[in-house]
C-alpha cells in the first residue's frame, strides 16, 4: 500500500514543483554543488586543468607563503574596517541631518544616492581621473600656489588602498544613508518628545536612545557592507588594476588571476575557499543572532 502511495505524494502539487525547479536546480547544482566542488579541488594539485590528485593542505601552505596573497589580505582588512566604520558613520550622520525636517530633502537624497546606480567600473574610472596626479586634484591645488601639495594616492603604494576607499565610499554610502533614514523614520515621535521634556541634549538622545533602538538596521547595514567588501573586484581592476606593483591587490583578484591568467587553478580554489571561510565567520554569528534568537523567543 505504502509503495503505491509514493508516486502520488511526488506528483501532488506538481505545478508548484515544476515552478520551483529552477530554484531547486540552482540550489543543488550551483550553490551547493559548485561550492563543494571548489572546496574539494582546493586540496588537489590542479594546475592548468582540474584533477583529483589530493595533496592535503599544500595549496593553503603555498597560499599563505605568497606575499601577494598576504598583501591582498592586508588590503582587504584595511579596506574592510575603514569602509565599514566610515559607511556606518557617514550613513548615519547624513541620515540624521536629512531627518531634521530640512528643505530640499528629496534633492539631497537623490544626489547622495545616485552614485549607487553606477557600476564599480565607472566609479573606479571616474576617481582614477580625479586622483590623477598630473592633471587632477593635486595639480589644481598646486596651480593655486601651494606647490609642495602632494595627494597622489593611486601612485603611492603606502596609501593606494585609501584612494580606492574614497571611491568605494562615494559609491556605496548613499545606500546606507537610505537604510538609516528609513530606520530613523521608524522611531516613534514620542521618544523625541519624552527626551526633550527631560532636557536630554539631542546628541545624547541619538547616541544612547535612538541608535540602540535601531539595532536591526545596523545589523542589516553591517551584513550588507561586509558581504560587499569580500566581493570587491571590479573597483580595483578599473581604478588601479592592483597597482602600483601589487600594492592594491585584493583576494577576489588573486582568485581571478590565478584561475584565468596564471593557469594555477589549485591556488585559485584555495584562495576562494579562504574567502568563503571569511564570509562564514561573519555570517554564522549573524544567522545565529537573527534566527536562533527568534526561535528561542517563540
Amino acid at each position: 500500500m505504502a509503495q503505491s502511495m509514493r508516486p502520488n505524494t511526488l506528483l501532488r502539487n506538481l505545478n508548484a514543483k515544476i515552478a520551483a525547479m529552477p530554484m531547486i536546480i540552482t540550489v543543488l547544482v550551483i550553490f551547493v554543488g559548485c561550492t563543494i566542488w571548489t572546496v574539494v579541488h582546493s586540496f588537489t594539485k590542479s594546475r592548468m586543468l582540474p584533477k583529483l590528485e589530493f595533496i592535503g593542505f599544500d595549496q593553503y601552505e603555498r597560499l599563505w607563503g605568497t606575499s601577494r596573497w598576504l598583501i591582498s589580505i592586508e588590503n582587504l582588512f584595511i579596506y574592510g574596517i575603514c569602509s565599514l566604520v566610515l559607511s556606518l558613520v557617514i550613513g548615519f550622520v547624513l541620515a540624521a541631518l536629512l531627518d531634521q525636517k530640512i528643505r530640499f530633502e528629496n534633492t539631497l537624497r537623490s544626489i547622495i544616492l545616485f552614485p549607487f546606480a553606477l557600476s564599480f567600473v565607472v566609479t573606479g574610472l571616474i576617481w582614477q581621473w580625479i586622483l590623477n596626479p598630473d592633471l587632477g586634484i593635486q595639480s589644481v591645488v598646486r596651480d593655486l600656489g601651494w606647490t609642495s601639495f602632494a595627494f597622489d594616492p593611486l601612485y603611492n603604494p603606502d596609501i593606494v588602498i585609501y584612494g580606492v576607499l574614497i571611491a568605494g565610499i562615494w559609491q556605496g554610502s548613499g545606500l546606507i544613508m537610505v537604510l538609516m533614514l528609513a530606520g530613523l523614520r521608524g522611531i516613534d515621535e514620542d521618544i523625541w518628545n519624552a527626551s526633550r521634556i527631560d532636557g536630554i541634549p539631542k546628541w545624547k538622545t541619538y547616541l544612547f536612545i535612538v541608535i540602540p533602538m535601531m539595532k536591526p538596521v545596523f545589523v542589516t547595514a553591517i551584513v550588507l557592507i561586509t558581504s560587499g567588501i569580500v566581493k570587491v573586484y571590479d573597483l580595483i581592476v578599473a581604478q588601479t588594476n592592483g597597482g602600483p606593483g601589487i600594492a592594491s591587490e585584493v583576494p577576489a583578484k588573486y582568485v581571478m588571476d590565478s584561475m584565468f591568467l596564471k593557469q594555477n587553478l589549485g591556488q585559485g580554489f584555495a584562495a576562494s575557499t579562504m574567502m568563503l571561510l571569511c564570509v562564514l565567520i561573519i555570517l554564522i554569528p549573524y544567522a545565529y543572532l537573527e534566527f536562533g534568537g527568534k526561535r528561542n523567543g517563540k
Partner: protein
Amino acid sequence: MVNNHIVPNGPKPKSIFTARNIMLYGTLFVVAIYYILPLYVMIVTSLKGMPEIRLGNIFAPPLEVTFQPWVKAWSTACTGLNCDGLSRGFWNSVQILIPSVVLSIIIASVNGYALVNWKFKGSEVFFAVLLFGAFIPYQVMIYPIVILLREMGLMGSLWGLVLVHTVFGMPILTLLFRNYFSSVPEELFKAARIDGAGFWGIYFRIMLPMAVPIFVVAMILQVTGIWNDFLFGVIYTKPDIYPMTVQLNNIVNSVQGVKEYNVNMAATLLTGLVPLVLYFVSGKLFVRGIAAGAVKG
C-alpha cells in the same frame, strides 16, 4: 477709534539664519559637493579638447565645447583589434540585458508565488539555502560554472551569460516576490481555488495583475544589476560579445597609445548613462528596489 498698538499675534517668526541652520545647510552643501563633483568633472572633461585638458584645471568649464570625444568614444575608440567604439559593447549589453531580465523575473515571480501559496515538502529549506547562497562569494562558484557551461556548449556565448545572470539574480528576486505575494490576503487565493482555478490560472488572472508595481521594482533592480556587471561578463563571454562595462575598462585602461582623457570620460559617461537615466526617471521606485535588495532575510 484707531488702534495704534498692533499686538503681535501667533508665534514669533523664526529667523532662517540661525547658527543651527547655517551649520546644518553648510554641512549638507559640502556633502552634496563631494557626491556631485565627480559627475561634474566627468561631464566637463568629456566636452574639452585634449590641449585644453593638458593646460587647464579639471574643474574649469570648457572654453570651447566639443562633442568630438563623445563621437569617438561611441564609434571609433579601439579595444584590441576592434575599432568600432563602445557602440559594440552597448548593443552586446542590450542583447544580454533583455533576455536576462525577462527570464530571471519570470522564474522568480512564479517561484515566489509557489513558495507562498503552494508550499511543498522541503520548499522552505530550498528557499533558505537559496538566500544563504546570495552571500557565497562568486569566486567560489565561477570555475565549476565554466565547466558546466562548456559541457552545455554555452561557454563564451550570450546565452551562457544570460543563464548565469538568471541564477545569481534568483535569491533576491525570489525574496522580493515571495514577500510581496505573502502580503496578499489568503482569502483571495482560497476563493479562487473554490471557484476551480488551478496553479497557473490563479497566477495569471489574480496574482500577476496585482503584482505590477513589484514587477517594476524587480525590473529596475535587474536592469541596473546586469548592466553594471563586470565579473560575469569578463569570464563567460569572449571579446566579440563583451558587455559594455568590460569594453569600457579595456578602452580606458589599455596601455597602448596616448591617453585621451576626454574620450575616456565620454565613454565612462556613456556606460553610466543607462542606470543613471533609470535612476532619475524611476525616483522612489528605485529606492524601493534597492531597499528590497538590501534587506535580505
